[in-house]
């Protein structure tokens, strides 16, 4: 088992439930290949630094997991087939120093997920509201 991190960018032109369904599907891909998800971090809707497939924004979601190295090829193949993903980035945490950093990131993600559990729904709504005002300003 080796530690990995996957960042996926989901297409923005979907409702919140559809995005959650896509993310659930992504997590299922990992678990069905023998991965153990340690923590997830929903970064939410963000502006992309450059357009990907003509999309200016994307929904960022980070998954920390550990899996046998051989399964990564299959997971990435599935991600490539998935048309709802704009982009995915797989990072390997191999050396002792990197593994320590991975543990730190997992702790941070867990803490972030635990503390604003109640605030999660308004927190999700707040950036959207900002974005709409930005769009109006533009």
């Amino acid at each position, binding site marked *: 088992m080796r530690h990995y991190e996957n*960042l996926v960018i989901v297409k923005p032109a979907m409702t919140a439930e559809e995005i959650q369904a896509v993310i659930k599907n992504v997590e299922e891909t990992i678990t069905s290949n023998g991965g153990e998800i340690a923590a997830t971090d929903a970064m939410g809707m*963000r502006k*992309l*630094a*450059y357009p990907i497939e003509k999309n200016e924004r994307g929904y960022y979601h980070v998954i920390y997991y550990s899996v046998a190295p051989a399964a990564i090829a299959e997971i990435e193949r599935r991600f490539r087939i998935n048309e709802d993903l704009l*982009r995915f*980035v797989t990072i390997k945490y191999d050396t002792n120093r990197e593994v*320590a*950093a991975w543990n730190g990131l997992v702790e941070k993600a867990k803490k972030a997920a635990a503390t604003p559990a109640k605030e999660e729904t308004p927190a999700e709504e707040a950036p959207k509201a900002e974005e709409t005002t930005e769009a109006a300003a533009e």
Partner: protein
Amino acid sequence: MSEKRKYKKRYCKYCEAKVDFMDYKDVANLRFSLSERYKIMPRRLTGNCKRHQDMISTVIKRARAAAFVPYVVTRKKVVPNPFENLK
């Protein structure tokens, strides 16, 4: 006169802060090593040590792949504060 230093003594900011690992997701920390056109700043200008320069260059390349940081900035897109519009 000849013994006087021409330039300020350079030091690695990451060594001073004892950075062991950089995360490609916090864009604000990458700012120091990026030019206003998002190019990776050379070691001779930032004073980074070899180890940290290698780290920062891989981290910036990851951030580019994840669309946190652009690959290229055209003349139209140059802005005075490049990290303002992100996030």
